[in-house]
């Protein structure tokens, strides 16, 4: 237990990162630092490497060059801790079409949940999916599925949220719900990295927003 004290501060450092898809280099020498209660908005045209960057940051892809440090250590050296403290919601929802909304959330809580901070009933209510909780996901609309995928954020107590286009297919009311959650997460000292084509609308989010353009 002689680790330096800085190690215990939740901090994401991306250092001189280079990402590529096949042979094509998408971005290089990308560096940023994210501290608690900070919000990183990644913008850029289609094909500029936003998804690739997020997949590198969450640890699915290895970078061509550079490194990502979580609490001062390379994420490849502390994968379990990093996976426990981060949640990734990609552009594919990761839901099983043959399970109901509630069953999907239940499995997410069991497999990814570090500690369940809401009951599943509460989560379903917050997500606005009360009426369709017992419907198969195959019967839900794209927007409802997106909400359910974001429900993973609620059942897992992660500090770092990594979100790829969270607002796709979501209606205005859903967007408000998601933004409210982002704000309360940030107020509790959480961190958010997200990509989105639309600019951030909520003034409270704009205050703590860092924008990176690819």
């Amino acid at each position, binding site marked *: 237990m002689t680790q330096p004290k800085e190690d215990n501060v939740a901090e994401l450092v991306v250092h001189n990162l280079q990402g590529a898809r096949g042979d094509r280099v998408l971005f290089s020498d990308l560096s940023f630092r994210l501290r608690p209660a900070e919000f990183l908005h990644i913008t850029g045209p289609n094909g500029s490497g936003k998804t690739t960057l997020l997949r590198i940051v969450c640890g*699915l892809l290895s970078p061509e060059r550079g490194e990502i440090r979580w609490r001062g250590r390379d994420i490849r050296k502390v994968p379990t*801790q990093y996976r426990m403290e981060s949640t990734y919601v*990609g552009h*594919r929802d*990761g839901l099983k079409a*043959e*399970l109901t909304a509630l*069953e999907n959330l239940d499995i997410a809580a069991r*497999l*990814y949940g570090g500690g369940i901070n809401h009951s599943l009933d509460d989560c379903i209510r917050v997500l606005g999916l009360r009426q369709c909780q017992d419907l198969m996901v195959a019967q839900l609309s794209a927007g409802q599925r997106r909400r359910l995928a974001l429900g993973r954020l609620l059942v897992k107590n992660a500090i770092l949220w990594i979100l790829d286009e969270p607002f796709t297919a979501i209606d205005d009311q859903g967007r408000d719900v998601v933004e409210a959650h982002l704000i309360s997460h940030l107020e509790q000292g959480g961190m958010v990295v997200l990509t989105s084509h639309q600019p951030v609308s909520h003034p409270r989010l704009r205050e703590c927003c860092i924008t990176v353009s690819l």
Partner: protein
Amino acid sequence: MENTESSVYSAFIAIFRRDLKLALRRRAELINPLAFFVIVVSLFPLGLSADPPTLLRIAPGVLWISALLATLLSLESIFRSDYEDGSLEQLALSHHPLPVIVMGKVAAHWCTTGLLLTLLSPALGVSLAMPMDKLGALVLTLIVGTPTLSLIGSIGVALTVGLRRGGILLALLILPLYIPILIFGASAVDMAIADLEVAGQLYLLTAMLVLSLTLAPFATAIALRVTLE
């Protein structure tokens, strides 16, 4: 991080139950390999001869090869849908060890294919003129052999699931690895029919099961991480 052991166990149970539930809701996928097994086995009397001594001579090989092909047919279902809907990347990002999750998935796959094939095999054995008192040996070899088929198969699926047309490649990759299991499985049944001792073959099949049970989940987990890159 307390209770790591129990949380790993509960992750295994959670994924096992999830996959069983999914398999039961996809009836067609559940029944296809079984129907394939029954049909392939019943083609042999039609194509060769319905003469009982001939059938009895080929029965062990036919049953084992058919079980092996039926398993091969069902392998893709271990990871295909999870890969397509993005669940697989979520599982890979879970803080639980990936080999444990793989083991849960393979266990569920075996329960919905290998186990059912084994339960179905006595009826098919009888249709190939096998004597009643030799069916036990058939069931025993299949129950030890089919989990190995699922385990080795999971490595192949993990490597090929990212490819658009991975089916043929999977067969080419996996079938050679199935040869030892086929040899010992079929020869055990053969020897049982000839009233000889089969313990040796069964020990070898069990050894292969233990070996694949300890190594395959790790190999599959590594292959999955490569596939997801």
